[in-house]
């Protein structure tokens, strides 16, 4: 697989699995022994847990839309810098839904093997999300 092919696989994850909520497509797009380095609480490795992660996101936030801002690929790695926009419609990680909108940034690093997502790391601006949802006070700090 070329780096361009790997980018195409990763784009389908955001465009189709996340934005169009085609969770079953993960059977085609991710390996059975998927390795997650930045799990959600309770998430283990493997395709079933990846599906549960995506289902959790889609269940918590509807609508939720990811915009791919940049894609960088080398070897079997594909990096995606994204922003999202969503509404906290269902509540997340045990916190009741606030009904509020949010928009945050994140950077994902995927490993693609044999045209499938195989491994993942990320950093997401969860603090900004919690602040936008009113779950954490806006620090005087950040504003000044």
């Amino acid at each position: 697989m070329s780096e361009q092919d790997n980018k195409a696989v990763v784009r389908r994850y955001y465009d189709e699995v996340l934005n169009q909520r085609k969770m079953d497509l993960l059977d085609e797009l991710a390996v059975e022994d998927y390795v997650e380095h930045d799990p959600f609480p309770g998430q283990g490795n493997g395709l079933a847990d990846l599906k549960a992660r995506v289902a959790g996101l889609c269940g918590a936030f509807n609508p939720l839309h990811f915009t791919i801002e940049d894609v960088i690929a080398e070897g079997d790695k594909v990096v995606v810098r994204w922003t999202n926009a969503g509404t906290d419609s269902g509540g997340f990680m045990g916190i009741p839904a606030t009904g509020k909108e949010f928009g945050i940034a994140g950077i994902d690093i995927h490993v693609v093997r044999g045209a499938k997502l195989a491994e993942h790391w990320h950093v997401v601006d969860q603090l900004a999300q919690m602040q936008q949802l009113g779950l954490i006070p806006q620090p005087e700090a950040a504003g000044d």
Partner: protein
Amino acid sequence: MTIEANKAVIRRYKEDILNSRDLAALDLIVSEDYLDHAAFPKQGPGRAGLKQRVAHLFDAFDPHWTVHDIVAERDIVVARWSHSGIHRGEFLGLQPTGREFTMRGIDIYRVTAGKMSEHWNVVDMFGLYQQLGLLP
């Protein structure tokens, strides 16, 4: 510049220059009109602003950076890193807590003719706040 040369610039920045607090060396590897898309509040423009930014981090956290992964394509270099430190000084208005922490981030740089010229990042501020005891 090859992508390997560009990666070497970023490794030098994170692991050598930042860890040794060698602000003067930034003149060699950062373009004067460095554009920071992830600027701190009140960070000035360009290389001078980057120097203020890292000096603030040194004073606030005495951090030590470790680069865990590097991915590069064309003139772009991605670095996944963590730094460990102690919150010993004011940070963006947060009064020092004295607590130790390890913080994660992923930075994306554009490297132009051997110099860092543009920057985006996402850092785990939530994890930092948790470790500093600042979350309810």
